[in-house]
């Protein structure tokens, strides 16, 4: 399995999910993610799995809930307006502690939105998205390879913490083709059996109930506190990020996903021109790498956050670094073209020299 493949990001996320043992997919067509269900429709039946093109995103997410409650690795994928429709079901999955993978190949802007690359849905993804004050795990791939790798990680984290996981990508990450080294999925040794789930065999012992409703005295409060304790535990153990040239950085860049690819080129150009610039790319957007950010920015003068939106992740960067100057540069969703590395470089120079 060491052959280097040339595939689309949307295909890679599907390949990674299937390799990780996902055997149930429920979805509804929407651009720019339709390659995901198309790939899975071609390959899942041969693996003995089930593919359902549902009547709506709402039905898809609820099929996922049912499959997850029965202990299966299952997924859905969609794009911004479709993800909004799924929020009811995601809230129920969070409330009833059902793991599962949700891929969001984000569109740009409110309403129907455009199909160009955008990071407009950061807030929706990391702040809960639906009702009830919960969070889900959010991973942000910046390459075709990471679409594959993080699909596996998403299932592992989701199963371990019984929290739904989202892969937040966009049209660039989903639609571009680049090299992929597919590798075998190895389940973590410590991944526990899903003893809480409804099993295949007849249940003659203890009855299992998967539900979000908790009406007993203090039950809901305890449940919510328990969920938030798991979020805190994830922040301790599961934060992932990529650090570049952080040791001597006077200016630290932050960016995720497709925007980080542009920022990396700008970072290289800045280094070539002698500027001491580093970069921290969050891979887990929730849990957010606040502690590593604090650690790596301790000696930096300033932080510059790049995003393909009007400023969303920058709020979390500022919360992590209350005493640090944090600047922002971004493009509104729907700009129709991507910022160039030179455009980012000009921003880097301005802030570096200021």
């Amino acid at each position: 399995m060491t052959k280097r493949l040339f595939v689309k990001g949307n295909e890679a996320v599907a390949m990674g999910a299937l390799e990780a043992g996902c055997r149930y997919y429920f979805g509804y067509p929407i651009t720019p993610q339709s390659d995901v269900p198309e790939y899975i429709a071609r390959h899942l039946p041969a693996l003995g799995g089930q593919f359902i093109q549902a009547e709506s995103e709402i039905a898809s997410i609820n099929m996922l809930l049912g499959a997850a409650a029965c202990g299966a690795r299952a997924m859905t994928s969609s794009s911004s307006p479709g993800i909004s429709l799924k929020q009811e079901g995601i809230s129920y999955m969070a409330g009833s502690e059902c793991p599962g993978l949700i891929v969001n190949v984000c569109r740009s802007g409110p309403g129907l939105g455009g199909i160009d690359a955008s990071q407009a849905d950061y807030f929706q993804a990391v702040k809960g998205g639906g009702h009830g004050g919960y969070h889900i795990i959010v991973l942000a791939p910046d390459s075709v390879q990471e679409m594959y790798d993080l699909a596996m990680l998403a299932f592992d984290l989701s199963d371990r913490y019984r929290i739904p996981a989202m892969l937040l990508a966009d049209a660039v990450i989903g639609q571009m083709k680049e090299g992929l080294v597919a590798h075998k999925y190895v389940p973590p040794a410590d991944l526990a059996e899903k003893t809480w789930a409804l099993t295949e065999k007849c249940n003659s012992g203890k009855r299992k109930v998967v539900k979000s409703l908790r009406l007993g005295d203090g039950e809901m409060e305890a449940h919510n506190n328990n969920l938030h304790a798991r979020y805190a535990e994830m922040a301790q153990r599961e934060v992932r990020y990529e650090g570049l040239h952080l040791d001597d950085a006077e200016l630290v860049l932050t960016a995720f996903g497709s925007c980080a690819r542009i920022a990396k080129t700008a970072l290289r150009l800045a280094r070539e021109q002698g500027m001491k610039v580093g970069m921290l790319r969050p891979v887990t957007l929730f849990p957010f790498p606040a502690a590593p950010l604090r650690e790596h920015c301790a000696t930096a003068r300033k932080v510059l956050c790049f995003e393909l939106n009007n400023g969303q992740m920058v709020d979390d960067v500022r919360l992590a670094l209350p005493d640090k100057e944090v600047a922002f540069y971004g493009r509104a969703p729907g700009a129709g073209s991507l910022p160039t590395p030179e455009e980012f470089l000009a921003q880097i120079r301005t802030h570096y020299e200021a």
Partner: protein
Amino acid sequence: MNTQMKQVFSRPDSLKDVQTHFCPGCQHGTIHRLVAEAMDHFAIKDKTIGIASVGCSVFLYDYFDIDVIEAPHGRAPAVATGAKRVHPERVVFAYQGDGDLAAIGTSEIIHAANRGEQLTIIFVNNTTYGMTGGQMAPTTLPGQVTSTSPTGRDVASQGYPMKMAELIGSLDGCSYSARVAVDSPKHVIQAAKAMRKAFEVQINGAGFAFLEVLSTCPTNWGMSPLAANKRVGEEMIPYFPLGTYKDNSAV
């Protein structure tokens, strides 16, 4: 002669020995019993998964001695689809009210039926939203006064009651669709038979089975249990005729 006495009536094994929260005269209890009797009849309680919907029926996880998944409002057929596809050897049923199935969940029920999912759907039609306090439902009868149709349902502006057993029966993917009532001993016996059939269709892998059960809501109808029961025969059955609307199950 005590030694010759034998017990001929008891709580079905598939029901827990607990008190329900249902109001006096509500027929959910009767319908729960019919579901439990059908599970006992086929000895399937250990392999059955119940899907609880939103409304008075949500608490079925406290009443049935089975595994249960709670579904969002109207989405029970989609949750049931996911569960059944993962565990095809288990028996999966959803139990939904009229607001849940015939208003907010119309899409999910039609498409689950049309895909011919191997599911049993119990649809309890009492012409009102019980849990939220008696608002107009998709099955509220013309002229019926509810808290959101205070002068009576006006079909010119509020449309007509949905006849779900007929609608679902018209879909090619549906194998069995019927409507029953539980307002008289005769109807209860017919309903028990239809309930067994609705499970038997799934057990035999014969497809999608839909059973509509007309029911009372004395509290929100503002009626005594007896008057409410009488209304089923006098007002509901004429609009929602009892009978089998589809039977392609070849059971």
